[in-house]
């Protein structure tokens, strides 16, 4: 039996398109990423370890993971509410609100960055109300969390909307006819169904927040840097090998999250079937 790489097809163009795709991918993605990994190997394993476990670097990991997790969690809660409202209710201006959800996705990160900083600094529109209360948002980890909230919102909402739209009304009606209150129905019927989508949205927002630079670099305090800012500083100091080492660790973390997302989607497909 001959083993084929691909199934026979009547359609033309596989060689051309596949070739284009593979050469483009190799040139643009594979080779540069290989370069990154190779650069990180130019320092000894010991140096690699010292670089990625240095106190300032570890503090940066903590800040980045912590802020990203909190931001993604906030987005999960509010994103669920927003998606629910957009799918199930109608109100004046709904189309406008629906379109606005994508704003963080469409807005250049530098613009979001300076806008949020101006907003939350001590004489900004919101900052001036918070300052007397002792809450400092700009130039602090709280500011970082706010910025990460901003950029992660569309991921949760856009992942939940299709899941909510696809939900079968009959199950809810059955639950209602069996005497469940609306809240019970929500917790026991609806939530489990959309849980995969919710977790996927959370993971996407989390992954995006981990790598965010533009929105965060203006509002972050220079003494507490998130990992992308740290890598940028190392590059400014021309410590390429160290920057590469930290980047490799970051990529490993992002891939772990990606893997988690893929597993979730595989699980949800099995579950749904």
């Amino acid at each position: 039996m001959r083993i084929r790489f691909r199934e026979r097809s009547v359609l033309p163009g596989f060689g051309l398109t596949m070739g284009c795709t593979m050469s483009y991918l190799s040139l643009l993605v594979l080779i540069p990423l290989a370069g990154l990994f190779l650069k990180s190997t130019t320092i000894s394993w010991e140096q690699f370890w010292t670089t990625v476990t240095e106190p300032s670097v570890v503090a940066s990991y903590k800040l980045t993971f912590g802020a990203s997790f909190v931001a993604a969690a906030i987005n999960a809660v509010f994103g669920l509410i927003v998606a629910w409202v957009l799918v199930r209710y109608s109100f004046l201006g709904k189309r406008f609100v629906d379109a606005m959800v994508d704003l963080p996705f469409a807005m250049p990160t530098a613009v979001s960055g300076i806008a949020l900083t101006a907003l939350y600094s001590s004489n900004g529109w919101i900052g001036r109300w918070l300052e007397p209360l002792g809450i400092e948002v700009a130039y602090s980890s709280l500011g970082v969390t706010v910025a990460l909230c901003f950029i992660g919102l569309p991921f949760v909402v856009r992942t939940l909307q299709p899941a909510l739209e696809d939900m079968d009304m009959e199950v809810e009606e059955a639950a209602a006819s069996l005497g469940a209150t609306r809240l019970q129905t929500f917790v026991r019927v609806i939530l489990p169904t959309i849980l995969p989508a919710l977790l996927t949205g959370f993971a996407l927002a989390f992954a995006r927040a981990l790598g965010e630079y533009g929105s965060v670099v203006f509002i972050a305090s220079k003494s507490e840097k998130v990992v992308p800012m740290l890598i940028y500083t190392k590059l400014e100091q021309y410590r390429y090998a160290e920057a590469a080492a930290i980047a490799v660790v970051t990529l490993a973390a992002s891939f772990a999250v990606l893997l988690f997302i893929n597993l979730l989607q595989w699980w949800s497909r099995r579950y749904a079937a």
Partner: protein
Amino acid sequence: MNSGARVLPDWVLVFVIPSLLGLVLGGCGRDAAVQTEQSAEPIGILNVSYDPTREFYAEYNQAFAKHWEAETGQTVSVEPSHGGSGKQARSVIDGLAADVVTLALAYDIDAICNQSGLIPKDWQSRLPDNSAPYTSTIVFLVRKGNPKGIKDWNDLVREGVEVVTPDPKTSGGARWNYLAAWGYVLKQELGDLAKLHDPKQGQAVAQAQAKAKKFVKELYAHVKVLDSGARGATLTFVNNGRGDVLLAWENEAFYSINKMAKGGQCEIVVPAVSILAEPSVALVDKVADEHGTRKVAEAYLKYLYSPEGQAIAAKHFYRPRYTKSVPEKYVEQFPKIELFTIDDVFGGWQKTQMEHFDDGGAYDEMQNP
């Protein structure tokens, strides 16, 4: 099956398309065409400078353009680039096509010379005064009214004082700050800095050096934020309201008070002793020759020493070398400070960079608890 309309097999296109892409993209990366200096065609040069010089060179570039047009009829546009001096030097080494460099210290230009060969080794003697047309020093900027009562260097390490200074690894001003602090302690301990060169005072000198290291280490313990350049540190202190005292270039301190919106909330404190900072300038020979801009670039640097160049420098709070034709008010604004030089106290930049700022040097050692 195939109607036979296509003659080329798929795989040929697989190679053709990426190659075409490569040519298109390669076209983007070609150097700008060599500019001819002889003709009256407009010419452009890139001046890679350090962080605080933005306003100074903005005005100077215009003045020089006028002067060059009057002299040769050619229009010249000078493109500025600003950032921490060390970082800018590394950028030039890495390929940033500077026609001239006007950096914070001679060592950064030496680094370009040694690591890339773009500048010849005798660059410093090509222009007067060791290629430093203006000088400056290091002073303190504090909040108006000086609430923490900071008078001199030893006040910086008092309890509860937060110091703002940029990162010595990227900024030139940061290194001058560090050395000024170190030199202050040596002066305190030895009384007379000439003792540094006296072999009989060896033990006293060694003790003084040890004390200086301890002091500077403690100074950096009071630093919470390290900006990459002097201007960044100024913004952090003045605009963002961080810290109690900013270690700054004298010209930066004057600029903040006079020109920045929130400058009125700050005041300058002049320490008793500080370091003579000599920012150096140089032509980047290889790049200028490649671009065909040598003549105009050389004239650009020479004009810094002219009466007009010196006046503009003084106006922007840089201490001019030649005060004869500079208006009185610009000369008088500079306070009298006792200044020591890097050659006298530290034995020159090569030695200093290696001992203090290179990887594994004194600054790196201080980062460990």
